[in-house]
């Protein structure tokens, strides 16, 4: 991202009830659209608007939760119009400084075997052998589109189209923590033991989420991710660390 790059066209602003606004950059899952969401999220954070309770980035939209009592004064007649006007003003003024470059995070993965019980199913679905699946999955550069579903669960864009595979018809009641998985056109990582329907292809020893750690999430929305294949011995070693 270059210095002073604005977010392009103004986002459409839609109320999400009386205590939140939805900023819409588009309606599809798209890496460039999603990058605008993260850029907007940074601009809003650095604008320090009063009464903001939370910023919720998603694929092509972002929500701003706010306390209406803090937005009763302004040129408009109601809190949601006042805050919408303040948000529009932010997007009309290009950001003063440079927006920070996204971090690049390497995530080690031990593919297949007991850690990736669906790797062979993905291989036959894709018409490739397991080694080729691993090579392609670990060759791509992914973008963290958003974190949701559970604390620390990253939805990653950039999966090789040959590796797209529908979710399982019968979701598992318990997917182990660290499982690296494919769900449709996306790949993701289960940060903790959770029910889930994605195809499990490997496991990372990395801790994706720890509420006691600062920052709690290994990955932030907008970060770039690369998977690095490791063997079972290295997995065991890193799990002990």
């Amino acid at each position: 991202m270059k210095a002073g790059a604005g977010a392009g066209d103004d986002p459409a602003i839609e109320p999400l009830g009386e205590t939140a606004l939805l900023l819409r950059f588009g309606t599809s899952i798209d890496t460039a659209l999603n990058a605008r969401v993260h850029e907007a999220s940074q601009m809003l954070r650095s604008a320090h608007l009063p009464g903001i309770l939370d910023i919720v980035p998603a694929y092509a939209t972002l929500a701003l939760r706010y306390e209406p009592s803090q937005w009763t004064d302004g040129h408009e007649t109601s809190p949601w119009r006042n805050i919408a006007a303040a948000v529009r003003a932010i997007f009309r003024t290009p950001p003063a400084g440079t927006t920070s470059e996204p971090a690049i995070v390497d995530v080690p993965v031990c593919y297949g075997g007991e850690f990736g019980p669906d790797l062979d199913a993905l291989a036959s679905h894709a018409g490739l052998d397991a080694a080729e699946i691993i090579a392609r999955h670990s060759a791509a550069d992914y973008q963290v589109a958003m974190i949701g579903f559970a604390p620390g669960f990253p939805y990653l864009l950039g999966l090789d189209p040959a590796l797209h595979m529908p979710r399982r018809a019968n979701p598992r009641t318990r997917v182990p923590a660290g499982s690296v998985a494919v769900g449709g056109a996306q790949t993701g990582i289960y940060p903790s033991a959770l029910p889930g329907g994605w195809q499990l292809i490997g496991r990372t020893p990395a801790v994706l989420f720890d509420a006691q750690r600062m920052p709690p999430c290994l990955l932030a929305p907008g970060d770039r991710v690369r998977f690095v294949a490791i063997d079972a011995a290295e997995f065991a070693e890193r799990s002990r660390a």
Partner: protein
Amino acid sequence: MKVRVAKAGLLTTLQDRGRDGCAMLGVGRAGAMDDVALRLANALVGNEAGAAVLEITLIGPRLRFDTAATIALTGAELGAHADGAEIGMWRPVDVAGGAVLDVGTARRGARAYLAVRGGFDVASVLGSFSTDVNAGLGPLDGRALRDGDELLVRGELGARPPSPQPLSRGERGFRNWSLDPRPWLDADAGHPIRLIRGAHFDALDARSRAAIFSEEFHITSDSNRVGFRFDGPRLALAAPLELVSEPVTYGTLQLPPGGQPIALMAEHPTIGGYPRIGQVAAIDLQRLAQRRPGDAVRFEEIDLDAAQTRYLERERELARLIATIGERLTA
């Protein structure tokens, strides 16, 4: 000061006003389902609005206080007893050291709040005392209370307030006043819940658009702190929508493919992929939170400006009341 949990009750959790600022981590707000009752419980014992309280669901806990304490119960109407004597709600009440508080069972409403002067002394996780049971996040490792738990009470405010008389037999709080709960507790299933049209309301078919504001729904038995599902007329879209997941908030009314709408409640996920057909007005969230599985719900349309105006009025009224309570406590 320590509070020993002799019986935990059905679902008793530590809560505050919610965990803000963590949505980008995939961590939702959680917090009290009835935020108004939580704030009033804290005000009645002289706490800040965001002190940790217990949220009690339908069947309350039995608690033993090792030293004297000042407590307040708000929200759902319960038959609470201290050492066998019924105690009033919506007021500060002194309990003696060694007293056993039987919170009892909800007679009206679904969720009650127990505040202790000083607040429960529990770990703040990501800036909040709220328990997110699904995520396993919050005090007590994110779980509900269990029999045998011990909770500490914060000391700095734990000293007794001025001029207390210990409670003995009969209902004898040390103060002879209580709040009128009527403006703050409405569990009457006959009263409509106000609903703002959602972004995808117009995508409903004509029959569903009419049905949502004219027909009766019932809260299903699988409803919980994450969401209330409504049984009733099956709602349908006029044509399928291709949606990508977008942010949701407390009160968002979603329509999954089965046609039974779901209102997202306090422990909702941060993102949802179903059509958003409505938004429960913020002034009615605590009223919906007091309904039980099986209760009827009718929705009445309100527009965004009217809903926001009522919200501001409600907040002003609540702020005045909390200030008045503060004056009474220090008088």
